[in-house]
C-alpha cells in the first residue's frame, strides 16, 4: 500500500519525546504527519530513485554536495533553519554552475521540541524548495535526549546537473576580471545577532536567506565567460574573496565606498565592533567575470529578484598576489585578511 492511498496518520503529542525516535508507531506518525506529507511529491521511500534527461547529454556532469545546519535561534526574521537548510544546499550547487534538482534532509531533533515548530520548519523547507524548483526526495529523523542537541539540527545533501561546457573554477580568475555581488552584505549575520536577543538591539533586520539558482542561471546565460561564483556564507565576503585570491594567485582590490550595506547593519557593526565584511550571508554571492562581460552579467542580475541590488565591488589585479585589499573611503588601503577564529566583539 502506498502512503498516498490511505489517510495520513496524525501526531497527537505537543512535544517530541524519545518515543518519536524509537522506531515504532510514534516515529512513523511523526515522519508521515510532519514531514513526508508536507514534502512534495509525498510518500518518500528510504531510497529515492532518480533520473533526468539532462544527465544523458554528452559532457553533462552530476554535482553532489552536503551541508549541516545548526543555527540558533531556529526561527528569525526573514527565515528559519528549514529555509536555510534548503537554500544553503541549493546555493552550494548553484554557485558551482549546477542546476539543483533533488535534496535529502536528515533531522536530529532534541527531545522536548514543539511539534508545531517542526511543522513550521517543514512547511518553510517545502516553500523554499518550491521557490528553488527542487524536490526533497529522501530523509531521516533521529531524536536525541534533552541537552544532547540544541533544538533541531538539519543536514541536507543535494544533487544537480552541470550542463556540458560549464566549468566554474576559482583558479581561472585573471587580473582585470570584475567582481560583482548580488546584494547587500551581512544581513544574515546581523539578523541572527539581533534575534538572539543578547544585545537588546531593537532592530529587525531580515536575513537575506534565499535560493540563488535562478540568479545563477541568469548570470551564466548572459555572461557565459563567468569564471567563478561563491556564496559568501560563513566568514562573509572577506573569506570568499580570500579563497578566490589564493586559488587564482591574483590580488583583489575592492572599494569600501561601493560596498552595499544596509544602514541598520552598519549600525549594528558600529555598536558591537564587528566588521560587515566578515558577517555571514545566506543569499549573497560574489562572481568574477571578464571585464567585457561585466555589463551583461550586471544587467542580467538586476533583472532577477535576488540580484536587484547587484553592484560591481572591485577587480582582480596583478599587484599583491593572494591578498585582498580594500580602498577605504579615505583613499587609504587596508588588507582584508581571513578571519582568525570567530569574530569576537571588542570591549570598547
Amino acid at each position, binding site marked *: 500500500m502506498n502512503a498516498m492511498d490511505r489517510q495520513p496518520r496524525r501526531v497527537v503529542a505537543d512535544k517530541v519525546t524519545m518515543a518519536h525516535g524509537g522506531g515504532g508507531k510514534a516515529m512513523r506518525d511523526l515522519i508521515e504527519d510532519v514531514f513526508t506529507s508536507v514534502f512534495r511529491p509525498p510518500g518518500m521511500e528510504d531510497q529515492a530513485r532518480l533520473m533526468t534527461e539532462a544527465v544523458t547529454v554528452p559532457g553533462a556532469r552530476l554535482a553532489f554536495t552536503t551541508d549541516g545546519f545548526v543555527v540558533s535561534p531556529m526561527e528569525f526574521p526573514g527565515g528559519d533553519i528549514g529555509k536555510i537548510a534548503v537554500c544553503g544546499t541549493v546555493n552550494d550547487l548553484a554557485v558551482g554552475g549546477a542546476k539543483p534538482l533533488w535534496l535529502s534532509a536528515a533531522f536530529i531533533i532534541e527531545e522536548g521540541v514543539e511539534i508545531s515548530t517542526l511543522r513550521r520548519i517543514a512547511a518553510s523547507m517545502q516553500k523554499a524548495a518550491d521557490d528553488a524548483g527542487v524536490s526533497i526526495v529522501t530523509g531521516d529523523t533521529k531524536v536525541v535526549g534533552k541537552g544532547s542537541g540544541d533544538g533541531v539540527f538539519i543536514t541536507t545533501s543535494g544533487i544537480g546537473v552541470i550542463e556540458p561546457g560549464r566549468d566554474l573554477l576559482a583558479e581561472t580568475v585573471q587580473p582585470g576580471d570584475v567582481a560583482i555581488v548580488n546584494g547587500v552584505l551581512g544581513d544574515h549575520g546581523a539578523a541572527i545577532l539581533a534575534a538572539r536577543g*543578547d*544585545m537588546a538591539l531593537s532592530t529587525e533586520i531580515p536575513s537575506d536567506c534565499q535560493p540563488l539558482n535562478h540568479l545563477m542561471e541568469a548570470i551564466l546565460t548572459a555572461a557565459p565567460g563567468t569564471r567563478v561564483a561563491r556564496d559568501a556564507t560563513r566568514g562573509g565576503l572577506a573569506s570568499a574573496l580570500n579563497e578566490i585570491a589564493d586559488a587564482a594567485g591574483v*590580488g583583489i*582590490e575592492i572599494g569600501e565606498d561601493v560596498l552595499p550595506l544596509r*544602514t541598520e547593519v*552598519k*549600525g549594528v557593526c*558600529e555598536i*558591537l565592533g564587528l566588521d560587515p565584511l566578515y558577517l555571514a550571508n545566506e543569499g549573497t554571492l560574489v562572481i568574477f567575470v571578464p571585464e567585457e562581460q561585466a555589463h551583461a552579467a550586471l544587467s542580467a542580475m538586476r533583472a532577477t529578484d535576488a540580484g536587484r541590488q547587484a553592484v560591481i565591488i572591485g577587480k582582480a*589585479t596583478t*599587484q*599583491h598576489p593572494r*591578498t585582498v*585589499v580594500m*580602498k*577605504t*573611503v*579615505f*583613499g*587609504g*588601503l*587596508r*588588507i582584508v*585578511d581571513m578571519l*582568525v*577564529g570567530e569574530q*569576537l*566583539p*571588542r*570591549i*570598547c
Partner: protein
Amino acid sequence: MKYADEFRDPVAAKGVLAAIERVTQEIGATKEKPVHIMEVCGGHTHAIFRYGLDKLTPKGLEFIHGPGCPVCVLPMSRVDECVQIAEDPKVIFTTFGDAMRVPGTKKSLIQAKADGADIRMVYSPLDALELARRNPDREVVFFGLGFETTTPSTALSILQADADGLTNFTIFCNHITVPPPIKALLDDPHMILDGFVGPGHVSMVIGTEPYQFIARDYGKPIVVAGFEPLDLLQSVLMVLEQIRDGRAEVENQYSRIVPNEGNPVSIAACEKVYEPRPTFEWRGLGEIDASGLRIRDRYKAFDAEVKFNIGYGRNTSFTEEQEGCACGDVMTGRIKPHACPQFGKGCTPEMPLGALMVSSEGACAAYYQYGGLDLEPAE
C-alpha cells in the same frame, strides 16, 4: 549613517591631511628623523589601520602604538586565575568577548569552555547581574576588565547587587587606569615620544585633568581625541601644531563628547567601590605603581578574589614572557611590530606569543591584519 559619516568625509580629510603635511615640514621632521606621536588607546590603533591613515600621513610622522588595549596588557597569570574560577562547577563565568582568546600559561577561556567550563559572553556586567538573579543556585562571576571606560559599569553592577542583597554575584576585578602607564613610559630613559593622542572614551569618564602632568611635568603635548578618522587626523594636527609652536598643553578635540571635568556620577561610583592597588602587572611593561583597581573592603562580598581566595600577588607567580617576544620594546616605541623577530613567524593572531598580537586593538595584530604590506593603490 548619521553622526558617523560626517566624521569620515574624504573631502574634509584631504584638507586636514594637507595641513598635517605642511606642519610636519615646518617642524622639520623627515623619514629619517620623524616626529613620534603615541596613540595611547587600542581603539585609535584599530581606527588608524582600519582606515589606512598611516598610509596617508607623511613619512616624517610616525605613530607609536600605546598600551591602551586592556586585553593585550592582561598578564597571563590573571588569565590562569580566570580559568581556575571558571572551572569551578558551580560557577557561571561571564566575560567580554575579546577576552575569550587571550592565552594563559595553560589555556585560554575559549579552550576552558571547550573543556566544559560554563563561560558566557556578555556585553555588560549588568547582563551578568541578570544571570545571577535568574540562577540563584549558581555562582555568577564577571570578569571586570578594561580602563576607565568600563570601570563605572562594573562599579554600578556592584552597587546594584548590594542594593538587591544578591549573594551569588562577584567581580574578578582587573580594571586598570590610563595615566600610570603613560607616566611609566615617560619615565623610561629610552623614551622617544614627542606627543600623545589621548583616549576620548576614557576622558568621557575622567575628564582631561588627570593628563595635566604630561604637559606640566614632562613638557609633552596631549590632545584628547575621538575615534572617527577625521577626529584622529584633526587631533594629530593639533599635537603637531603644539610641537611646532613649542607648546605643551592638554587640548580636547573630542569636546562633543568629553566635558573637561568628566562624568561626576561615574567618578563618584568608582570612588565608592574601588581603591588603587599598590602595584599591578602589565603584560610587556611589568609592574606599574597604582595602575590597577581593587574592590574596597566595604564591598568585599562582591569580590571574586575574596570569595575564591585569589589574592593579587598571593597565589600569583609572575609570568615570564616567551623567549624572543619584544612586546615591551614595541610598546615603548623602540621598535616597530614587524621588526620583532617573532612577528608573523612564532607569533601570529592564531597563536599569539605576546600581548600585542592578541586583540585586534593590539599594535602587532593590527599590523598583521591590516598593514603587513607597503601598499600603493592600483589605479
